[in-house]
């Protein structure tokens, strides 16, 4: 499952590219070197990817758009420091996750804890209704978990990531991720 993240990300990253475009890693390198067009291409290619992460975490389209906007601006400012030591996709995932957290903490402080309770926003595409209900229940329960447990669960289950990839992004050990997931399951027992 280790390669799954990368495969999945690769897919996503290549989504908006035609065959003539340089691969994303090249674009990132160029952008890090100050190439404006390359950066524009990176943003264009990554926007949906970031949005998807933000949406999963927040469950609200306009919040997700706001966070995505923050992330691309952060990306603009920090891409020069991307040193290729980690996967660009995991690096970006981490930025996105941090932005999500900031957003949530801020919302919480404002007494707008609604995000955690909100179901999938009505703007999402309607699908099998019964499925939606259960899924939404799971999502909203997961979003109420303590931060780390939630992150771990969302990455492992929501993104189908391996514990190892999740650990890289969370900056902890693989065993810690497993432990978070385990704790999360315990906490969810009462909720689901």
């Amino acid at each position: 499952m280790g390669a799954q993240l990368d495969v999945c990300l690769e897919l996503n990253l290549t989504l908006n590219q035609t065959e003539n475009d340089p691969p994303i890693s090249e674009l990132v390198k160029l952008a890090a070197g100050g190439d404006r067009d390359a950066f524009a291409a990176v943003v264009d290619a990554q926007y949906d990817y970031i949005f998807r992460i933000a949406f999963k975490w927040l469950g609200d389209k306009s919040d997700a758009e706001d966070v995505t906007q923050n992330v691309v601006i952060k990306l603009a400012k920090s891409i020069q420091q991307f040193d290729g030591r980690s996967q660009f996709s995991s690096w970006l995932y981490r930025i996105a996750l941090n932005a999500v957290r900031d957003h949530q903490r801020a919302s919480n402080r404002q007494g707008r804890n609604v995000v955690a309770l909100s179901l999938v926003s009505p703007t999402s595409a309607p699908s099998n209704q019964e499925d939606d209900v259960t899924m939404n229940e799971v999502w909203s329960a997961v979003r109420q978990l303590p931060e780390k447990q939630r992150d771990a669960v969302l990455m492992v289950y929501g993104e189908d990531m391996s514990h190892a990839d999740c650990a890289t992004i969370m900056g902890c050990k693989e065993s810690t991720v497993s432990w978070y997931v385990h704790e999360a399951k315990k906490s969810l027992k009462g909720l689901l």
Partner: protein
Amino acid sequence: MSDMEKKLKRLKSLETPAPSSDAKKRAAALAMAAFDETAEKTTNGSQGLSWGQRLMSIVTPLKGIRLMDIRIPATAAITALLIVPISWQLMNNTSLTPPTLGETIVAPTEQKDELGKGVVDGVISQQETENDLAAIVIPAPEMEAPMVSPNVSASSKVATRTMGAPAPMRDQLGYLQSGDQFERFDDANIKLTGDQPVSTFSIDVDTASYAYVRRAIENGRLPQKDAVRTEELINYFDYNYATPPSAELPFAPKISVYPAPWNAEHQLMHVAIKGYMPENVMAQPSNLVFLIDTSGSMNDTDKLPLLKRAFKLLVEQMDEQDTVSIVTYAGAAGVVLEPTSGAEKRKILDALDNLTPGGSTAGAAGIETAYRLANEAKNNDGVNRVILATDGDFNVGISEPEALKDFIKQKRDKGISLSVLGFGEGNYNDALMQALAQNGDGNASYIDSYTEARKVLVNEIGGTLQTIARDVKIQVEFNPTQISAYRLIGYETRALNREDFNNDKVDAGDVGAGHTVTAIYELTPVGAAQPVDPLRFGETTQVDAASKSDELAFFKLRYKLPGADESTLIEMAVTNDNVVNNIADLSNEIQFGTSVAAFGQKLRSNAEIGTFGFDEISALAQASRGEDKFGYRAEFINLVEAAKSLAKN
């Protein structure tokens, strides 16, 4: 597979709606702007100042929660700090390299992103400290935010550290770098009197550095070293020095020599100068042109809105003999208000109120227009001044810095001077503002709050508007039989060549009505531990000063009266009569100034200050607070305390 596992597996099936293309476009545009800004700042580091290039800033900088601003509806914003590593530290570790004046280095961006979120009348909330392994909490301020989407508001003070990114840039004292631009300089080295007995510098009455430093510290970070110009910190305060009697002799310098609080073996030589204060400056007719930056980046609460309030203070003091014009640049470039009598306050205030930030179009000829209006309404008996207010965007129409300086200089010679008011943070181009104000015979002030606006535009309006002496230079020659080495505290960016002193063509600082100027030298008396060993084989300096051996130094000051082309000289010997052996016997003014000097050096991590700590600085300032009518000194003491706790972290 357990039931829980099954349920969790469902998480995957969440369908993400497509983001709206508008949101994507907007985000992409903001990202490009941020990218350009970052790229520009980075390249500037090696290529020097390219201030004219920056035409837009959509990303707003950090804003401070200032107590006095509470009445501004607290809008919230997402402030997500992403601290990015740059080996900026190197820059702070170069105290041994020789001074490289004039070289501008742009501080790397402290990655601050805040994005405007929906405007909600929320209460500004404080960040709870959360110890999170991924987050370093640094106090980042709230801000008024431009609105993007209607229902989201948030604020956050969390700096997150990204993967693959080294630790945030902090040097030994815990300085964090911001995106503002400062001229880089190193502390003045100790000079051996035998090698270089003469010290020459231009005076500096600017105070911008203090306001900037204060703001940084109040925002929870120590300012970058280059933002700290010790002389501006010292000169921020008004000292109750003896006032000279007449406009003809505008200065009466007073010199005191006393032990350095931070080094018992050394002495400080304190030069106190106060400019002549005419009876009532506002009684003089003023012809003012406000040249106002209305680019998109001026949108923040502490920029255009503060600027309006600041200018209103000024307008309130005007009457029918005064004229005011308003010119804007960027966005709606052009004349907002033709020269209008100061009696028509309503009209002027309305024009100010109607200013709105917008656009990032280069405002063509903004500065020419301003000077044209100043010239139209020119009053030969009064003050003619263009007051440029900006957050750092200088797309005023002339894009070459040198051409702009020349233009300003040329206009100054025709009697129209220029003052610069700086606003905001993140984009502030200190170096250029200083340069422009110096060429325009004016001063550069940094307005970070309404209180500061009041200080500059009401309490010290005389100094701001009326110049009583131009090109004021100081030259001190030390007696090698008494003083083996010396060091000028501050004024690094104002050093002049020895020969410049008598050259009236060389420009120097100007002094406004009632301004006080303080310069402090640290002296190593002969007999004290020497900073440098004498040369074994070098020629012994033949000192022919034996006859004047009781003189420690000889002080000279040159200035030009307004309108005069030739300078006038004031000179005096510094002898044992100037020496005070106990610092407690000095006036409060001198003691307080000394504590500020110590603070500036401390912030610059100057080695000379040694173990003299924030506590000692605070104690010295506390003891010499004096009357402190406006509370500036009390504020300073708080600042020292705040810096102390920041330096610990």
